[in-house]
């Protein structure tokens, strides 16, 4: 689909390793994006940023879906990504509404203030 002359990569052995992209590359990348999102969720207080981190995690998973979809020559992975995006949109709408409500009740969006959900 998008093509580019990459033969120059093969000219150098060091670059050759860069040139051979396997599904595993994508999976590792997806886990890295996931981990970054997770890092945000764990370390941040701001509910809006945490929500963005969640979106990042979802994207990490999406990447793995598409990669495996290609690997297995099966479009269902991409269909699943479509549904993930739909669910993410729904989730964002509801979560942002919750954040607005939280801001109204607690006077801020720090999740450290919302600790009612405890055992």
């Amino acid at each position, binding site marked *: 689909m998008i093509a580019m002359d990459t033969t120059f990569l093969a000219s150098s052995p060091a670059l050759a390793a860069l040139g051979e992209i396997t599904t595993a590359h994508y999976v590792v990348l997806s886990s890295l994006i996931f981990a970054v999102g997770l890092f945000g969720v764990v370390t941040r207080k701001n509910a809006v940023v*945490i929500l963005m981190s969640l979106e990042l995690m979802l994207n990490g998973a999406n990447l793995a879906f598409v990669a495996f979809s290609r690997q297995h020559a099966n479009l269902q992975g991409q269909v699943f990504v479509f549904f993930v995006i739909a669910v993410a949109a729904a989730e964002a709408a509801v979560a942002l509404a919750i954040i607005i409500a939280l801001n109204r009740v607690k006077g801020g969006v720090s*999740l450290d203030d919302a*600790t*009612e959900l*405890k*055992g």
Partner: protein
Amino acid sequence: MANLELYGYVILFAPLVATVLITCLTLKHKALSGWVAIAGMLAALTANALMAAEVFSAEPGFTRVYEIEWLSAGSVVIPFGVQVDALSTLMGLVVTGVGSCIFIFSVGYMKGEEGYSRYFACLSLFAFSMLGIVMSTNLIQTFIFWELVGVSSYSLIGYYLEKDSAVDAGKKAFLTNRIGDFGMTWGIILLFYTIVDTLGWDRASFSFEDLRLLYEDTGAVGAIMAEHAGTLALATLLIFTGAVAKSAQVPLHVWLPDAMEGPTPVSALMHAATMVAAGVFLVCRLFFMFAPYPEALAVVAWMGGITAFLAAALAFVQHDIKKVLAYSTLSQLGYMVLALGMGSPPAAMFHLTTHACFKALLFLGSGSVIMGCHHEQDMRKMGGLRKKMPVTFWTFVIGTIALAGIFPASGFWSKDAILGSASINHTVPGATFLYGVGVLVAFMTAAYMGRCVLLTFFGKYRGHAHPKESPATMTGPLVLLAVASLFAGALSLPKGISAEGGWLERALVGVQAAPSWFAGVHEEQFHLSVAIGGTVAALLGLFVAYMFYGSRKWSIDGFVSKVGPLHHLLEKKYYFDEFYLWIVREVQQRVAVLSNFIEVHILRWIVDTIAAIHRWFGGQIRLLLDGHLHRYITLALLGVVVILTAVLVGN
């Protein structure tokens, strides 16, 4: 013939459609609700009449089964459908015919009631349930509608929600019927299990026609069936307990008199004409299961005979006009069951049909009387209504003549058929004695009905209201039913009167399963001696009633004082209610206390201990969950890492 299936489903579902329409749309419009219900019933009646025209003109034993697969589990299929044969058509005609009259009567009787629409919705639901039993093709479908009949009966007995006695009566009816249903459930299970156990899953079925084939098999299957006669007879009798409860036979009869708390048309429709006849109908439908076992039939016969006598005796001491009719119903149902036990389902169905006509007539007549007397049911406060309510009086008298079995009203012919079957039976132990009981009950029936008529319509008016004749929506059905009560006997004139013998008997030939020992038992001959005996007993009964209550030449009080203890026993209804109360208070209460002890001190201790252990662990773990979401997610991630590591190391 293709239309038969359509007719069957129309009969079944027209009342249901009426119920749904009333509940969903017309609850607020009372008059409309009534007419919707009547329209549903008339649609069913029309379809049933069309069906009758085809079925009764076909050859005897004509049977068509239309089914769809409703539930299937493995090789067992539970169908749902309609069975079209002479039995279901006749029973359907009784239900829809009498039902239509009663629906129309209700328009007048229930005028101005608070729950008018609810009443008609329940009535239509009942009609649907009852027709479900009638049209059913298999035991499971029958059982479902059997329960539905119980539910709709419950809701109608307890129609006057604000009256405690009505609500209690509804509960009593429901619970008593549950006892029978419990037996019936086990009967069906035992029957099914036995067939699976002996003949394998291939022959296992709930369908009447499949079962009939098994029972009537003369080859290898028949031999296997004969080997397990004991178990199968037990299963049959267990199913019969369902019929005992629904048809209010002793000892499960206690609910029926109380059920008179419902509105009078309900008593007429359900607790006289149709619902209580369901038990008799079921035995007819399953008669092939009873026929091979003379012992089972003997139990049935004795149960019917005992009920007929005990109930008839109770009718003498009632002052409530509806209670008299209720015990009379019990007694007549006993008659029908007696006929079944004597091996004559056609006689039972014949009496069921005629009884439905004249008992519905009598109940509606009593309803008209009760309306006229401003909801007074006590006969001691009636009297002299003959002049004030002439239509009601004459139709009531016709009903009485029919019930007493005086020639030529319908009751004469059907009672004669039953007594005839008893007189020639030679398989039931004590058949001659039961025949004697039958004649005695005929005498008693005439006597208590004579008492009822004399107290209500003759003498001087003893109440305080101003009775006047009921409106046309009420007298119209009365006249219709009176005509039917007079001439329904023509359905089955016995041999010796008409050339071909009973039409009904020929139509119902398919009901009879006839093993070899059975030959000749169900021959419906006209026996002059039986007819004369029955008629003399009835006339004697009327005479006795006249001497006590008409001319007052014999003193009631003197008679009562002579038979004091017996009178007391009757007043207490043989202490059945007290006995059941004792069981509940003493036996059941003790068991309940014991169960409670086991539950509180043993079972609950075990459960509490287990819960305490978990609570302790939970108490430790909950410290981790302090409400900070990021900690939760970190812990979840740790879990994922641990699991992944474990999987990786495991590989």
